[in-house]
C-alpha cells in the first residue's frame, strides 16, 4: 500500500513557484529522502504534506486521507520534527514529551515518555528545563517529541542540522530502528546521511522533481562513482535546463 500519493502538488507565492507540479508516490514503511539545494522546495513540500501550508493546486493523499479535504484526519496520523527546535522552554524534557503525548491522546503518556527517554538516552536530562539544554540536546528532544506519538508517517526536516558527529550518528541509529515501523520522509543537506539511511531518494531543484531512485540508481543515472558527484551532476543539469 502507498503511504503517500502526491499528485501535481504546486505551491506558488505570487510570481514565485516554490513547488511545481510534484508527482510522487511513497510506499508504506519506506524511508524516503528529499534532497536539494537551498530553495529547492523540500521544506515547502513537507509543510504542505503536514497541513501547515495549503497547496495552490494539486493534492496529496496520506494513508487514504487527502491533505486538502481531510486535514484533521491527516494530523492524527502524522508527526513532524521541524527544522528549528520546537520545544516549550520552561517545561522539562519529560514534561515536553508527556505534553505532546497528551495532545495526541496517547493512552499512557508517562509510559510513552519512559520509552522515548530510554530510546534517546535522555535520562540524565529528563528533569532539566529544555531552555537550559544545548542546541544539540534540544534537537534530540524535539525529535523525541515527534516520535512519542508513534505516527504512521513521520516528517523529519533536516533532523541532524546542528548536531555534532557523535549525536548525528546516534540519531542515525534511532532512525534506522524506525525503518519499516513507520513511513519516514527525511529532508537533509547531508548527502552521506541520505545515502546511508534512505530506501529511495528524490532530488529536487527549483521546486521540481529531477530524479528519483535508490542511491545506486541515481549514481548510475548520473554516471558517477560517488553519490555526491551524482547529486551535483543531476542538480547542475537541471540548472542548465532551467537557463535554456
Amino acid at each position, binding site marked *: 500500500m502507498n503511504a503517500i500519493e502526491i499528485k501535481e502538488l504546486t505551491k506558488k*507565492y505570487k510570481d514565485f513557484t516554490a513547488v511545481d507540479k510534484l508527482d510522487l508516490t511513497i510506499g508504506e514503511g519506506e524511508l524516503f529522502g528529499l534532497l536539494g539545494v537551498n530553495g529547492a522546495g523540500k521544506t515547502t513540500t513537507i*509543510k504542505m504534506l*503536514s*497541513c*501547515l*501550508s*495549503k497547496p495552490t493546486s494539486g493534492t496529496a493523499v496520506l494513508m487514504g486521507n487527502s491533505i486538502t479535504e481531510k486535514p*484533521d484526519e491527516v*494530523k*492524527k496520523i*502524522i*508527526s*513532524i520534527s*521541524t*527544522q*528549528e*527546535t*520546537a*520545544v*516549550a*522552554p*520552561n*517545561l522539562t524534557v519529560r*514534561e515536553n514529551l508527556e*505534553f*505532546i503525548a*497528551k*495532545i*495526541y*491522546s496517547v493512552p499512557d503518556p508517562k509510559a510513552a515518555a519512559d520509552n522515548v527517554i530510554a530510546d534517546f538516552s535522555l535520562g540524565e536530562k529528563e528533569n532539566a*528545563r529544555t531552555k537550559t539544554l544545548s542546541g544539540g540536546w534540544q534537537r534530540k528532544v*524535539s525529535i523525541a*517529541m515527534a516520535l512519542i506519538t508513534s505516527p504512521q508517517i513521520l516528517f523529519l526536516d533536516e533532523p541532524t542540522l546542528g548536531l555534532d558527529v557523535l549525536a548525528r550518528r546516534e540519531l542515525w541509529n534511532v532512525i534506522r530502528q524506525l525503518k519499516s515501523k513507520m513511513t519516514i520522509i527525511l529532508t537533509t543537506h547531508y548527502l552521506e546521511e541520505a545515502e546511508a539511511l534512505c530506501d529511495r531518494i528524490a532530488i529536487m531543484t527549483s521546486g521540481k522533481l529531477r530524479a528519483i531512485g535508490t542511491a545506486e540508481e541515481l549514481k548510475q543515472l548520473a554516471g558517477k562513482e560517488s553519490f555526491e558527484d551524482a547529486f551535483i551532476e543531476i542538480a547542475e543539469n537541471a540548472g542548465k535546463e532551467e537557463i535554456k
Partner: protein
Amino acid sequence: MRITAFANRNIKELIRDPLSYVFCLGFPVVMLLLMSVINKSIPAQANMTVFRIDNLCAGITVFGLTFLMLFAALLSSKDRTSSFLTRLYASPMTAFDFIAGYYLPMLLLALIQCVITFGVSLIIAAVEGVSLSIGGILLAIVTLIPSMILFIGFGLLFGCKFSDKAAPGLCSAVISAAAILGGIWMDVDAIGGAIEKICCILPFYHSVTAARLAVAGNIGECGKDLLIVCAYMIVVAALSVIAFRQNMTKDK
C-alpha cells in the same frame, strides 16, 4: 484532554517565570501598601478619598489585571515566533483547544491575583479601621470577570499580530491608558470635560467603577458600567479569536 494539556503547559510557563510573581502578584500588593502610606499623609481637609483603601482596592486590582495582558501577549507571541506553535499546528489541536488553553490559565491567575489583592486590602482596611465587606469584595471579583477576559483578549490579540518585541510595547500603552484613564489614581468625575468623556468612552473607567460600586455594596448601580465592559470584552475576545484562527490557517 488537549485543552487541559495545553492549559497545564501554559500555567507551568507562567508560574516558572519569576516576572509573573513580581508583576502579577507582588506589584499590586506593593502599590496598595505604597498608596495607603501616601493616603495617610494626605490631610483630611483635602477631602481626597481616591487613595482610601475602600476606593483604592478596586482600582489597584484592575491595574494588576492589566499586567496579565502583558503576560498573555508575551506567551502567545513567543510561542508564535518560535517553532513551537508551528509544531502544534500540525497536531490534532483545534483552534478552540488553543484559545481555551490560553484563556483558562490566565483566568485562573487573574482570580488568584484578585483574591490576593483584595485579601491584602482587607488587612489594610482592618489596620486603618476602614469598613470593607467580604461580600462586597466577592461581588467585585465577579464584576471583574469581564475585565479579566478583556485584558487577556488584548494580550492574545497583540501576541497574535505582533512580535514578542512589539507586543509588550503595545501592552505598556494600554497599561498606561488604563492607569491614567481608568480613574485609578484620580477622581475622573471631579475632573470633568474632555478627559471625563474619553474615560467614559474607554472600558477601563467603567471596569474600575463597577468594581468600586460592588465593594461599596452598591452592585445594583453598576449595570451600565458592566454592560460597557462586556461590550468591549466581546469585541476584543472575538478579535483575538479571529486573529488566532488567521494565524492557524496562514502559511507557515
